[in-house]
């Protein structure tokens, strides 16, 4: 048996165990609510607007509404807090439940443990938030019937959906790595999470250089539809050219890999302290 096949078994073992714990956890109900809430609202919107076949607004309004929903809700709140709930619990939750030592006592490289836990958390986050994005996108204009199908299938809709899915996935990857590290290092991950949140939300108002030291800046650069900032906030916004996708995507992936690498190296010397 090669070392590689042992590693794969160990990685698979952690992944399955974590997936079972994370996906079916009753205590994660609020994460399901965060993820599926907007999809529920857009589905409700579809049913309510069905009584007005030509709509009280245009298809373009719904496209902009979705862009706002995605950037304001999904990126700033839903995925941010959802990733916090899923990823910071991967280590901190085990510390609180006094079960991390079971992992630490196995003959497994700690780097693999970090990777396995991260992959399980990422799977949960992707299913919930990318899935929710798809449902919300497909239902928000559904009441336009054939016109919306035409927009999605033969217009810019499919490419926009692809971009939103990519951004949601990158958000899960980026915030996931950040919050996994917070859960490993901090007794109370809420404190670093609050700092990260303030920083990310201040992003539009920061100078160009500082804007680029964030996850949200690159995510917004990849969003297919811009949303107008209403006055008086628009006066405070510092306009910066969006980063091209060929920099933003690998940049975010590299940032996540760097953070995970640091977490993995730190996990090698981590101790069990349940006090």
């Amino acid at each position, binding site marked *: 048996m090669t070392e590689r096949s*042992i590693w794969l078994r160990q990685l698979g*073992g952690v992944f399955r*165990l974590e997936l079972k714990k994370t996906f079916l956890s009753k205590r994660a109900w609020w994460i399901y609510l965060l993820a599926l809430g907007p999809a529920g609202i857009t589905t409700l919107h579809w049913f309510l607007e069905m009584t007005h076949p030509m709509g009280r607004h245009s298809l373009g309004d719904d496209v902009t509404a979705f862009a706002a929903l995605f950037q304001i809700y999904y990126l700033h709140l839903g995925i941010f807090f959802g990733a916090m709930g899923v990823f910071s619990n991967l280590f901190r939750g085990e510390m609180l439940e006094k079960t991390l030592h079971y992992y630490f*006592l*196995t003959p497994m490289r700690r780097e693999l443990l970090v990777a396995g836990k991260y992959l399980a958390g990422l799977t949960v986050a992707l299913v919930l938030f990318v899935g929710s994005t798809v449902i919300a996108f497909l239902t928000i204009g559904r009441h336009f019937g054939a016109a919306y199908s035409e927009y999605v299938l033969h217009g810019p809709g499919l490419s926009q959906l692809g971009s939103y899915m990519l951004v949601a996935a990158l958000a899960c990857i980026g915030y996931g790595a950040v919050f996994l590290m917070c859960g490993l290092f901090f007794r109370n991950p809420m404190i670093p999470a609050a700092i990260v949140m303030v920083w990310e939300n201040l992003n539009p108002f920061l100078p160009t250089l500082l804007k680029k030291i964030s996850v949200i800046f690159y995510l917004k650069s990849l969003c297919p539809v811009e949303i107008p900032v209403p006055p008086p906030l628009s006066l405070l916004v510092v306009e910066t050219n969006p980063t091209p996708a060929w920099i933003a995507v690998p940049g975010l992936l590299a940032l996540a890999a760097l953070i995970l690498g640091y977490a993995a190296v730190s996990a090698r010397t981590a*101790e069990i302290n349940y006090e």
Partner: protein
Amino acid sequence: MSGNLITFDDVSRFYGEVLGVNRVHLAIPPGVTSLVGPNGSGKTTLMNLMTGLIRPTQGSVRVLDVSPDHPEKLGSLIGYCAQFDSFPKGLTGYQFIYSFLRLHGMPHAECDQRTWASLERVNMTPAAARPIAAYSKGMRQRIKLAQATAHDPRVIVLDEPLNGLDPMARAETIALFGEWGAQGRHVIVSSHILHEVDRISDQVILLSHGYVVAEGQIQGVRSEVKDQPMQILVRCDRPHLLAARLFQQDHVVEARIHPDGKSLLLRTLDADSFYLLLNRVVLDAGLDVESVAPADDDVNSVYQYLIGGEGGTV
């Protein structure tokens, strides 16, 4: 030789300003070794150090020549049944053992076979499919023991393993420890129940306030406690005669004849002189001696002499 020992070389561990253990030098051979000491004496710290769950502030630990800094090597050598009564959520007994065996990199069939074997060993097979959350305290203790030993480790570390077990399960578990020790494994046990520790231990390590007070085979430890008179029980046909001769000796501080008139319990500061005297009495007076046995070379007595406190349990 060090390849078969668990060694602590000048090991200290502090939790902030609180002392865990200090300046510990140990070389633990195979067999059953008991860690004995009151709460806060450093037993769990020693166990956590040898299993790599914590690191020494100073000094080094090696388990069969493997440093706990390498969990990927140590994990297959060691099995630790920790004191925490906590389990990953939502697992049955079978899933708990099987899932963590998978993390050893074993294939499914081997994990399955080992899981059933370890469940069988602790008589938990009938409860294998039930969620651990529905187990009694004793069952949880047994499933932890099964999980800690399922991968057949050479070093088994058990923190209060008898807690919550009924008398039958205790007896079976103690027999298991003896079996593992006889197989040449290291079995490190901490227990508050001294008379049970006494039954299962090849050697003891006495701890107090983070320091190793004594270590070794219990008789050897007892003989090193010079300031406490040794108790010896002699069963013979004329204990009165022996008592009269003994009272002429300076080293004998007490001699009590048992109400049955067939035995004498004495306390002496010099056991070797007593044995010489006994030989003389046997030769001179034709004393018929049935048995001579130390009465306080058990863990309980040594614990009281060196550390103090109530007997029986700590």
